[in-house]
């Protein structure tokens, strides 16, 4: 059964969220989510690359010989990553400095190649474009959630503005790498718990009806 275009978009945010459901691309996720601005910047950069690479891959899928599809996908992705990096260095130098090595490393982000291989190489251009947008949005939402929690708890700020009052002692662990794992794990656990409880309710309902 073919999904509608809207479903193609929303699956990236919800049921197939790259971070919380597919658990892909964790390296940048854990590393850059120390402040909301970094998380948002990383999410948008990856979304841009994903959107472009998905579109191009879907466009060229007819002329790419299957044997060399992976190197060609990588060339396409690397090109867009380099373009993104140069544009960021020129127009958002502060963000570029903060994200550092993780912008070039978008090349090896599993989400990008994963979507090219699993989706864009088999679907139409318009669907691939929507899929890229949805996955990118899901990635960005996940990054921003993590980053906002870590910035508020670990630094007492949000987007650089103090939000917790003067007497708040920041929970330093939250902006250290370990904090990334903790927040990530707890969020995934909470989502899983929600699923489990929903499933249990459904089962109980089904039993009650029979």
């Amino acid at each position, binding site marked *: 059964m073919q999904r509608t275009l809207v479903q193609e978009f929303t699956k990236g945010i919800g049921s197939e969220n790259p971070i919380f459901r597919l658990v892909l691309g964790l390296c940048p996720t854990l590393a850059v989510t120390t402040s909301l601005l970094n998380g948002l910047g990383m999410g948008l950069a990856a979304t841009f690359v994903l959107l472009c690479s998905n579109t191009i891959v879907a466009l060229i899928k007819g002329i790419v010989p299957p044997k060399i599809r992976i190197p060609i996908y990588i060339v396409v992705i690397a090109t867009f990553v380099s373009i993104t990096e140069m544009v960021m260095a020129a127009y958002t130098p502060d963000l570029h400095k903060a994200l550092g090595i993780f912008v070039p490393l978008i090349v090896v982000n599993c989400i990008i190649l994963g979507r090219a291989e699993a989706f864009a190489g088999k679907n139409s251009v318009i669907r691939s474009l929507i899929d890229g947008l949805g996955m990118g949005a899901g990635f960005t939402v996940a990054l921003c959630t993590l980053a906002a929690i870590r910035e508020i708890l670990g630094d007492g700020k949000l987007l650089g503005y103090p939000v917790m009052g003067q007497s708040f*002692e*920041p*929970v*330093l*662990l*939250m902006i*250290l790498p*370990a904090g990334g794992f*903790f927040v990530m*794990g*707890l969020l995934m*656990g909470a989502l899983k718990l929600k699923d489990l409880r929903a499933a249990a309710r459904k089962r109980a309902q089904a039993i009650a009806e029979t």
Partner: protein
Amino acid sequence: MSDTKTDTAPQLIVSAAPHLKTTDSVEKIMYSVVVALLPALAGAVYYFGLQALWITGIAVVTAVATEAAIQKFRKVRITALDGSAIVTGILLAFNVPPSVPWWIPVVGTFFAIAIGKHVFGGLGLNPMNPALLGRAFLMASWPVLMTTGWSAPTGGTTSGVAAVTSATPLMAVKAAMRDLALGVNVEQSRAVVESAGTAKAYFSLFVGSVGGCIGETSALLLLVGAAYLFYKKYINYRIPLSYIGTVAILGWIFGGEGLFTGDFMFHILAGGLVLGAFFMATDMVTCPSSPLGQWIFGFGCGLLTIVIRLVGGYPEGVSYSILLMNLVTPLLDRYTKPKVFGA
């Protein structure tokens, strides 16, 4: 703890070895541990004042409340008063400096119970000692509060070592050794190191009239409590002996300016080694159950402790070394379990 019950209490218990049954309940063991910790608590109140009791009380209340709240949320039987949460609370309080703000034990105990224990499924399923995990969380989150809140005990200087009052003995000696290696403040540093090796300094460390975390300073009172647990057979000699022995031998070999000149008495008595070796490394849930595994566990803890003390960034390594060895425990159990007779 032993396999008498876990939080989820399934009908059919399929658990890892050992499948030994005893008549000891969780309550009996845990309340014995609480009793064993009381002498050290009394010592802490004597040396650091009512603040020590206050911090410990807050930690215990938070531990029990957190345990009950999470068990309610998880819809399992509420066993908050089985003593295990109380032990976690006391041990956490024993691992923080006496003059920390009141919310430090609250946050630390909450983390210990919620993340250290219940995320993994509750009592008996936690891979690491919850109290130590709570301490590691506090150390990483508020390093300044956790390393500067030392207060001078009644009848002693903070460090128990000449001329330094703002640090624990381990911190003072470590800073002095580093200065000696760098060649700065040589005279003062040498005086600190030498004064730490006198009989008077050993005595201060033994009775506990030095600065340090609430429950770690008095080796004497901790040993009194440990003797009670030995008597009840809730702990055995293997882990404490191999742990303290390893620290002593390695401290003697590598702890000084030349080989075999280290001050091993100082390494045994200073810091949290006695508390860690008798009360935290021996936690039944998180240490190996086979005798050989326990020897290796103690040795590993000792090795890591001395490495952290001598070359690491922190002055004290007891808590991190036990946590790291906790993680190796399943492997130790797998490779050291005794052969089944006849197999």
